[in-house]
């Protein structure tokens, strides 16, 4: 890994330095397929960058990390450039000070790879309307994470629904894919009519109400969200004629699928790393209408 620090710099100098470093390394002939802009606080930087670089192994990208520092300080731009042997693609960590924090897009836009998709990701708090955000507006795909709102995760989803634009997604939704996939597989054998259902999860888990909203959107019945000791989502129960279909997972790893008239079966259902969630996000860059329907339904029924 070659690291290069530039302090009090400009986007033009950063670009030139990238070109220089690439030449120095014998111009790694790697086609980068997208630019990922990560907007975060200093405390999230390490984990977010790690996840993004892991995901970039599947989707070689230029990763631009934007960290807004003290607004009171004099205007300054610091940059840390990394071109790795271990990761395809390039990384630049930008630290913005003073009034520049309000104009991050002016630094980011000249650094975007030309003519390839741009994805923005807020691992922590995100703007209310990501698509109207200066950086969000540069991206086709905008990834928020309700979990980044700490206790406010569930309510942040209401904001997401209100500010939704095509291309928005949330990692709270991506975390559900294994659950949804298992439930869909269970429904590949017809289950008949579903009357009502329950999703149980640890308190404040933002994925749980999304799962409930998706299920009630698809099944047309009421799905209750209840609290459990966790970790994460622990149970989905659906009331059917002659019993219930349930998926129960108490150890965050192995789930048991039960349905009327059939033996119980264990299925691996592990929680996934952020890097895996990001890799999933980057696989498809068109808008996710199923997420849209789920998050909007959730917002309509949310009582606060």
């Amino acid at each position: 890994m070659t690291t290069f620090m530039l302090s009090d710099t400009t986007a033009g100098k950063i670009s030139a330095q990238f070109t220089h470093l690439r030449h120095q390394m014998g111009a790694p002939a790697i086609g980068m397929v997208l630019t990922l802009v990560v907007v975060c606080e200093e405390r999230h930087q390490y984990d977010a960058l790690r996840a993004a670089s892991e995901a970039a192994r599947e989707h070689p990208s230029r990763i631009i990390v934007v960290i807004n520092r003290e607004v009171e300080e004099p205007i300054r731009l610091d940059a840390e450039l990394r071109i790795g042997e271990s990761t395809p693609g390039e990384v630049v960590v930008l630290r913005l000070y003073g009034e520049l924090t309000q104009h991050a897009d002016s630094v980011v836009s000249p650094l975007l790879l030309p003519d390839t998709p741009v994805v923005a990701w807020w691992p922590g708090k995100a703007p209310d309307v990501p698509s109207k955000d200066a950086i969000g507006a540069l991206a086709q795909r905008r990834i928020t994470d309700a979990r980044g709102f700490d206790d406010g995760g569930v309510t942040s989803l209401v904001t997401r629904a209100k500010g939704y634009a095509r291309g928005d997604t949330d990692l709270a939704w991506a975390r559900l894919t294994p659950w949804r996939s298992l439930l869909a597989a269970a429904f590949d054998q017809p289950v008949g009519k579903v009357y009502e259902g329950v999703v149980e999860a640890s308190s404040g888990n933002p994925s749980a109400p999304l799962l409930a909203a998706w299920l009630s959107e698809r099944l047309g019945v009421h799905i209750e969200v209840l609290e459990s000791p966790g970790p994460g989502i622990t149970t989905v129960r659906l009331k059917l004629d002659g019993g219930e279909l349930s998926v129960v997972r108490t150890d965050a790893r192995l789930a048991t699928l039960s349905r009327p008239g059939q033996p119980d079966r264990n299925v691996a259902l592990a929680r996934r790393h952020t890097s895996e969630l990001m890799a999933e996000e980057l696989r498809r860059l068109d808008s996710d209408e199923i997420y849209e329907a789920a998050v909007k339904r959730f917002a309509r029924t949310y009582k606060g």
Partner: protein
Amino acid sequence: MTDPAAPPEESVTTAAPAEEAVTAAAAVAGTSTTLDVVAANPLRDPRDKRLPRVAGPCVMVLFGVTGDLAKRKLLPAIYDLGNRGLLPPGFSLVGFARRDWKDQDFAQLTHDAVKAHARTPFREEVWKQLLEGIHFVPGEFSDDGAFDALAMALAEIDQTRGTGGNYAFYLSVPPKFFPLVVEQLKRTGLADAPEGSWRRVVIEKPFGHNLQSAHELNEITTSAFPESSIFRIDHYLGKETVQNIMALRFANNLYEPIWNRGFVDHVQITMAEDIGIGGRAGYYDGIGAARDVIQNHLLQLLALVAMEDPTSFDAQALRREKEKVLKAVQLPANLGLNTARGQYSAGWQGGEKVVGYLEEEGISRESITETYAAIKLEIANRRWAGVPFYLRTGKRLGRRVTEVAVVFQRAPHLPFSKDDVEILGQNALVIRVQPDEGITVRFGSKVPGTAMEVRDVSMDFAYGESFLESSPEAYERLLLDVMIGDPPLFPHQREVELSWKILDPIEEFWATQGQPEPYESGSWGPESANAMMARDGRVWRRL
């Protein structure tokens, strides 16, 4: 036990137009199992692209679990599928072998194979899920009692695991046992799918050793299973880059206009191996390079590169186009001048001293089996008339590499001085299949600092998968497709037979030619292969 949810296999075999619509829609959706399942399943939606294609509940019955293929590829691939969440709940794995084993012994073998060869990390919960469904049935293929026991075991698994009578039988055994195993599956009724469930059989190459034997083999298999339930594995077709050939050709507008005799000079398709025959003397001797590799892998690659665009990517449309182009393949009139065969002799391969083919253990000193084969083919259609396709494969060559190189004609006029373009070759588009998957474009570029000196440069593209040591194995994709019942990546019997029709005359000619020409291990094959190209004024790409 009938399961109304499972894809109705019978109706698929008979109702052709409906099947087309179904598979086409499923191919578009790309994520779901089949259209009727989607329609019936309120949780599935073609727009829901996150949901992976997951197979329905089923049992995989593996014959030949102690074999090399099972341990190195199949068992690890099954685990990897589980790790990716792609195995259905209740999935069960039944091993069959002539060992006095209990379930736990087979579980141990699977565990070891997974630990040694799986590409994804070992996770206890995934192993637990798999372990629950592992069963073993001991017996010889000739032992009726063993197959009766298998049938009973499967019926019991349906009860305890909810697998709904859906079984895939994977014949990872030497082909001479196919008739016996298939006969047993027929006798015990295991080959017949009850209403609402499916039975599929998976067979590995070689699909016979000539047209006649391929035909006989197929008669045996089709006597028990309908064609739509037979899945022939050509693991090349499961590779990402091979599927990428179709994306490259049919998703872009850049290449299609030049993908024809107007611009292409010739095409070279190579599969080079650096290893010798290893311990597989019994399999290899008498078969040889052409039957082992050209008949299946290289002719499939040729078909994908040369075919017209299919109307969709469903099995029928794709196979139709591949068949059309295989039918149009023509052999050169003079086989002596336009084919080459060789046999490796002792030498140095990558810094190691290695023995020649005739000194290998288990090989007769007089064997005339070729370990290198090169052939020139033409395709008699409007797109390709006059463009030669050169296919070559060999063992103990300089390097392990598989690629398809489309070599373009020289520019009709070069407005440079002769000296300046002396070292300029022909443009080429290379699809690198393995080991370094990707695409290379070769074109001329000005040498900086000179007046107008032009030379060849290469531009490489590798998508991310190739950075992961763990890019999904071809076998994962193919096993999943078998369980889902998605056939586009499996060659149809008609393709198998067409390929033999191309190869048989060459094999017959070679049989009259005595000993193949020796070539030194670690080299790039016999002199006659170079001479064959030189006669056409061309050279093999240096790999």
